[in-house]
């Protein structure tokens, strides 16, 4: 609980920091800016922790023994693909929605041989979030920004079609976008869903 409060306190401080920077940028806002942006990105160390494998029913000794031939030992994702749309209210503040997809692979291990099997594509993850982005540097070619999004992540177990959900909270701690209407960008992400970096392309119109 203490760690959670500490985390929230830091998040709040970060939010204040962003607003301060944004206010500075707002002072430079001359009302001439593109109001829409679509982003496509890839990256992040996706958190697969929710993967649910408990749908195997153990009704007999036979079931139990067979279940031990295929124990999920590790799950991983090769990253997450994100598509976002942002509407700029000012040159420094935008509201947006994000959809993300990630394929989750699982490594199964036999409890009898101790051997790992080839990874199997077991889960699909669908991420739906909405949030705000702050630009604290708005030059013609380079923009620096941060954002915070929240929403829900829906996992689908491909083997039995069972879905599970979890609350999602993501931030871009630091993002840099280079270009005019078409830009390339890189972000440093942290949150409940993915962490690390992501890169992508955005179009402003």
């Amino acid at each position, binding site marked *: 609980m203490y760690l959670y409060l500490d985390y929230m306190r830091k998040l709040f401080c970060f939010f204040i920091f962003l607003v301060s920077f944004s206010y500075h940028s707002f002072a430079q806002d001359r009302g001439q800016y593109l109001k829409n942006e679509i982003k496509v990105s890839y990256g992040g160390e996706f958190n697969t922790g929710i993967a649910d494998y408990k749908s195997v029913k153990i009704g007999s000794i036979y079931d139990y*023994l*067979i279940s031990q031939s295929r124990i999920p030992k590790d799950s991983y994702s090769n990253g997450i693909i994100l598509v976002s749309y942002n509407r700029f209210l000012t040159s420094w503040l935008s509201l947006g929605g994000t959809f993300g997809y990630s394929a989750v692979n699982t490594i199964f291990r*036999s409890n009898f041989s101790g051997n790992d099997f080839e990874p199997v594509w077991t889960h699909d993850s669908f991420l739906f979030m909405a949030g705000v982005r702050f630009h604290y540097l708005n030059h013609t070619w380079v923009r620096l920004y941060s954002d915070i999004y929240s929403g829900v992540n829906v996992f689908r177990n491909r083997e039995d079609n069972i879905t599970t959900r979890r609350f999602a909270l993501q931030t871009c701690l*630091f993002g840099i976008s280079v270009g005019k209407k078409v830009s390339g960008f890189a972000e440093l992400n942290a949150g409940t869903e993915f962490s690390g970096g992501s890169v992508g392309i955005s179009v402003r119109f």
Partner: protein
Amino acid sequence: MNKILLALSSVALLFSVASCSKYDSGLDTSFPQHLYREAKNIYFYNSAEALSRAVRWELLKTVTDPEAREYYLNEFFPNSMTVKEEGNRLKFGALNYVSNGIPLMTPGAELTVTNDYLDDYFYSIKCVSEDTWNVSFRMSMDVADYDYPLYIEGESVVKLSSEDLNTFYFDIVSSKGRYMDKKPEGDESVGIIDVTAERMCYLTKYFFEQYGNVPFGSIYYSYSDMVHVFHGSFTVVCNTRPQTSLYNETYIFDLSYSDLYYSNVYFGHNGIWGSF
């Protein structure tokens, strides 16, 4: 411009730092633990409980002090358990014994046991020396953790290890048998666990209330660890029928480091050893 370069280099650095290490569980003890507890509570309990009740009764006869006798009577046979002896017929809870008239601890004694709650129940005791018995058993019963009943069978040589009523336990001199799924006609998928007690496997019992009138096969005891095994070792061999990916998976349980009061089990499988 310097600030931008600084920012870019920071991102590159954090990219490289923010990586996640993969989880490796190492040796998995959950399955060996499951086998150990199942063999203990399903196989060994049922192989020794009927003999244990009869021996407790015989030992109780040697206690002459009425106060001590009352104490041990309550310890060995809780109030809820019916204890009755009439001629060559004995009744302890749900178990009914018929003897050939020779006292249990005299060579030549033979008893057969039936169970009030289980039709498919056979248990026989033959005394081979004053503290050693051959027992054979075949029974079917429901257990809490499975949808299908289990069939249990085996033969054991059991020796009374201590006549001290306060630390009452047996040596399983040898035991060989199995427990397996008992599935309806047409369902051929059967799991089979063969159990062999090697060298000596000791076994003691705690006289909990549930030992009273609760029948064998009751859902109340199946995994409740009311049996304790220590010293010696036993082996289980897992098979499925029809044979799939599983064939003669063997686990050895070394109980050398367990004693009357403490459990420290080493298990071996495919040359790899672990403990729990």
